[in-house]
């Protein structure tokens, strides 16, 4: 959806080579599937404006789907977004440009949620957190869940001084109100941009605890995705792997989770390098 709106917003001054239909009769034209667009710019660069860092595609400034000027607060984030745009070859594959999409969401806030609503949505996930929701059958999977997920729950309980637990009931674990309060006030310490990222990661991984594990740098993205997909991995081990489905989903989830995590960290730190006292 964002891809199509973004296309509508960019100024329509097609360079000579860019004009083409999606299916050309001659073999020399590459097939550009619907939802993609040919790369229409040569150079991608960054500049610093009043509101932050901006992305330039040739001489044009990048805009959001809602036609706002695309500005980001962090230079490192701007560089990463510029790299996304620069790495597009013949066609622009919007579905691979996760950082751009996250920035657009932060700038446009299309779901019109304020900070409180975002936090509430994030913490609500705890009630159906993947790693708290256990099976009893088959025993091998139940054992795997216990061995892989219990340490994460224990880590979160210790780190945040809360009670979470796990459950095999269909209703899920019973999360005490005090636990929710703790997470609500912890998340309140993040700014709006970072919160968009956090909520994104939670919806991708279907787990608040795994997301906090990532945000707190306790586990890597690969590990978090593995733990999120534990049952899938178990079934794959049993029944075999189907590349065009399993690997496809795995890579997509990894890319999105990595983008979300990086986005959160880049939006919640100061980018100045702290020099040691020894250096002048």
């Amino acid at each position: 959806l964002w891809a199509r709106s973004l296309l509508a917003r960019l100024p329509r001054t097609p360079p000579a080579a860019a004009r083409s239909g999606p299916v050309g009769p001659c073999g020399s034209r590459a097939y550009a599937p619907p939802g993609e667009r040919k790369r229409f710019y040569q150079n991608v660069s960054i500049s610093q404006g009043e509101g932050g860092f901006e992305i330039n595609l040739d001489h044009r400034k990048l805009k959001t789907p809602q036609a706002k000027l695309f500005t980001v607060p962090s230079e490192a984030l701007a560089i990463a977004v510029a790299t996304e745009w620069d790495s597009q070859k013949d066609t622009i594959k919007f579905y691979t440009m996760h950082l751009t999409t996250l920035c657009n969401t932060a700038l446009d806030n299309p779901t019109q949620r304020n900070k409180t609503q975002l936090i509430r949505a994030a913490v609500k996930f705890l009630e159906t957190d993947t790693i708290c929701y256990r099976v009893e059958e088959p025993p091998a999977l139940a054992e795997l869940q216990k061995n892989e997920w219990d340490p994460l729950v224990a880590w979160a309980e210790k780190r945040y001084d809360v009670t979470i637990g796990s459950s095999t009931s269909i209703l899920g674990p019973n999360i005490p109100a005090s636990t929710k309060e703790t997470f609500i006030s912890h998340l309140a310490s993040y700014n709006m941009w970072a919160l968009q990222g956090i909520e994104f990661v939670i919806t991708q991984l279907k787990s608040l605890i795994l997301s906090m594990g990532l945000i707190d740098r306790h586990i890597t993205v690969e590990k978090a995705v593995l733990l999120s997909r534990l049952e899938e991995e178990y079934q794959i081990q049993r029944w075999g792997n189907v590349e065009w489905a399993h690997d496809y989903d795995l890579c997509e989830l990894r890319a999105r989770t990595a983008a979300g995590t990086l986005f959160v960290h880049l939006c919640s730190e100061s980018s100045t390098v702290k020099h040691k006292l020894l250096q002048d």
Partner: protein
Amino acid sequence: MAALGAPLRTLRALLRELRHAAGRPYRDSPAYRHVLAAFRAHRVTSEKLCRAQHELHFQAATYLCLLRSARQHAALHREYHGRGERSPEEVAGLVGFRLPQQPGGKG
């Protein structure tokens, strides 16, 4: 603490991914220069458990994961989902079958 491995390994892999991502002059690309500058800046430290070092390494590993899996996902998409309709022969081939050949065409 996240199991990250050697920072040098992450850096090398990350630079390799950036080489794929950027165009021809990859060494001058902003991302390449930024990553190298960040690693160099954090090299000068005497503490073993320097928190900033770990944060940088985690960020680099995360970015590496992003670039790598985005590239793999795009390749899989191109391979399996980007080619429009397949012929019956191709579809059969996907699950390991071959269409029967009958002399004189199908009955």
